[in-house]
């Protein structure tokens, strides 16, 4: 709360977070109305982390994400229209309709992909950083993952590798306290995620992940030091997952009081309060939220009218050598 932040920068964060929130609420509604196929993993309540971290990335930087990845792509400046088309499985989607919500990627902005496999993004991020180092390119890689991912082997292997090679990776752990339907503390031993990182040679800092100014400030320092060659760093951001694990999960296994309490710590409302203190009128924030709502409404309308991919696309982009041929209609 005490973090100093300029009015314009915080306003930009507010807009980013409002876009993520609106995207997630729209996706949830579309799922409930059976208008999109598959499931969506929503990040409502966690918006301040991608907003604060991605604001510190330069154009040439890269990032990896998780199954809960919409916010990372949006904060990085991803194309909301293309993302919406992907959720609908239509032509023009981020991945041409082949990936869906859980696999959105956008190489134009260095977004190497959401991922359906927990912790799979960590070694990929380390590899991206390793490639940058080999090429002598000054790129930083932001690697987002959840608190549940720290119990998979790739967490250990990736942090160790990044530290051994002093690679420019900022690991960002979004600690929302839940691993699907199980509280992470029940399956995780030891003195915590920061201590695990430190033991692997990766210095770690904790932050209130619902305070976008604090995330921005700390991520700024860490990205600068990683860029300067310090080797990897880990940012441990405390937050909460407002929705169920997937859109198909009402989250009924959680204490409603816990959820209600978490929702009072809303990163958007907190930013709005600070903005009020900086002289921003409530009407200005409402105008941003209206803009964003209109943007999402347009994206949905366009996506729902867009054509499905040509079935022939099933066979494209598999491989160059030995590519599959279309099955002959018998």
């Amino acid at each position, binding site marked *: 709360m005490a973090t100093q932040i300029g009015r314009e920068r915080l306003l930009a964060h507010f807009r980013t977070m409002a876009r993520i929130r609106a995207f997630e609420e729209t996706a949830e509604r579309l799922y409930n109305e059976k208008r999109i196929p598959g499931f969506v993993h929503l990040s409502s309540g966690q918006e301040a982390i991608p907003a604060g971290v991605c604001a510190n990335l330069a154009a040439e930087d890269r990032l990896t994400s998780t199954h809960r990845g919409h916010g990372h792509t949006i904060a990085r400046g991803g194309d909301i229209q293309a993302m919406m088309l992907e959720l609908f499985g239509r032509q023009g989607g981020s991945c041409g309709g082949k990936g869906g919500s859980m696999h959105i990627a956008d190489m134009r902005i260095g977004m190497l992909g959401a991922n359906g496999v*927990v912790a799979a993004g960590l070694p990929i991020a380390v590899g991206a950083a390793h490639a940058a180092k080999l090429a002598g390119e000054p790129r930083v890689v932001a690697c987002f993952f959840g608190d549940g991912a720290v119990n998979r082997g790739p967490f250990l292997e990736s942090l160790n590798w990044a530290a051994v090679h002093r690679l420019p990776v900022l690991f960002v752990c979004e600690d929302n306290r839940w691993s699907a339907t199980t509280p992470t503390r029940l399956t995780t031993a030891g003195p915590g995620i920061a201590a695990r990182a430190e033991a692997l040679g990766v210095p770690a800092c904790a932050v209130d992940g619902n305070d976008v100014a604090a995330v921005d400030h700390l991520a700024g320092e860490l990205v600068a030091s990683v860029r300067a060659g310090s080797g990897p760093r880990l940012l441990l951001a405390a937050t909460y997952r407002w929705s169920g694990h997937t859109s198909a999960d009402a989250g009924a296994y959680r204490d409603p009081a816990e959820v209600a309490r978490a929702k009072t710590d809303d990163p958007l409302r907190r930013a709005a309060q600070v903005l009020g203190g900086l002289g921003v009128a409530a009407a200005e924030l409402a105008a941003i939220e209206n803009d964003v709502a209109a943007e999402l409404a347009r994206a949905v309308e366009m996506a729902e009218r867009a054509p499905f*991919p040509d*079935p022939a696309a099933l066979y494209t982009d598999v491989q160059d050598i030995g590519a599959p041929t279309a099955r002959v209609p018998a």
Partner: protein
Amino acid sequence: MSRMSFVEATRQALAAEMRRDGRIVVLGEDLGRGGVFQQYRGLQAEFGPARVVDTPISESAIMGVAVGAAMCGARPVVEMRYLDFTLCAVDELVNQAAKLRYMLGGQARVPMVVRQPIGLWANCAAQHSQSLEAWWVHVPGLVVLCPGDPADAGPMLAAAIRADDPVVLLEYKELFPAEGEVGDPTLPAEIGRARLVRPGHDLTLVAWGGSVREAAGAAELLAARGISAEVIDLRSLWPWDSAMVLASVARTGHLLVAQEATEVAGFGAEIAALVAEETGARVARIGAPRTPIPFSPALEAAYRVDAARIAARAAAFLARHR
């Protein structure tokens, strides 16, 4: 006989086995909440969290711990959530569970069950939908079961638990809610026996898991065109009931194997090859194209091996060889 869903039959079978044998322990993620398909609903309440263990998201440890425990007197049932996540534990399954008995000169056994929900379901795309049964059949030391009907769901799980070998149990996600007439779901099945789904005389159609419904649907479509297809549900992929398949093909003269998995190097190729070697009959396969599984329903429709595609393949095959 009573009407019961596939998933309910597996719950009853597992609960009965756990009541019978205190050495059985279940290891997997989110089991206390019933698991992704509610296969474990109520089991932690009955047997406690020490026997129905909510594990960390640590697939290699889940599988490896089961191997060690199985070598030392426990009877682990491992839940992989989706077959696809078994790929995070392949060393433990293939290099350890499958081989240790042999490598140790028979000093130890590894009696464990690896449950893998398999196949297309709810547009979950390339990392949550694969059918990789051929990988497991290829590995010496593993038994591979794949029930295709609610009546077999419980008995095959019970048989897998009682086996002293490591058993991969492939459960088609789309079958979990399917209902059917079920006998006693807790009565262990005889491993290695196929099931005649529908008699016929022009063509033998062999399928397993989710493809059994599609093959049966194809037989209906073929019947309308005057073609009589015999449908066999293989149920057990290793060992598989070559006697029943060979006897059927001896009568029909034609074999078509239908699988949801990629056609290239799929398990269907093994069946077709053996039947051709043994009988000289005409053989054919149908499976998915060699592409990852797409998200978009439009692309998935082009991908899926459904009843219409099987029927079309069968008709073309017979037309060419009659």
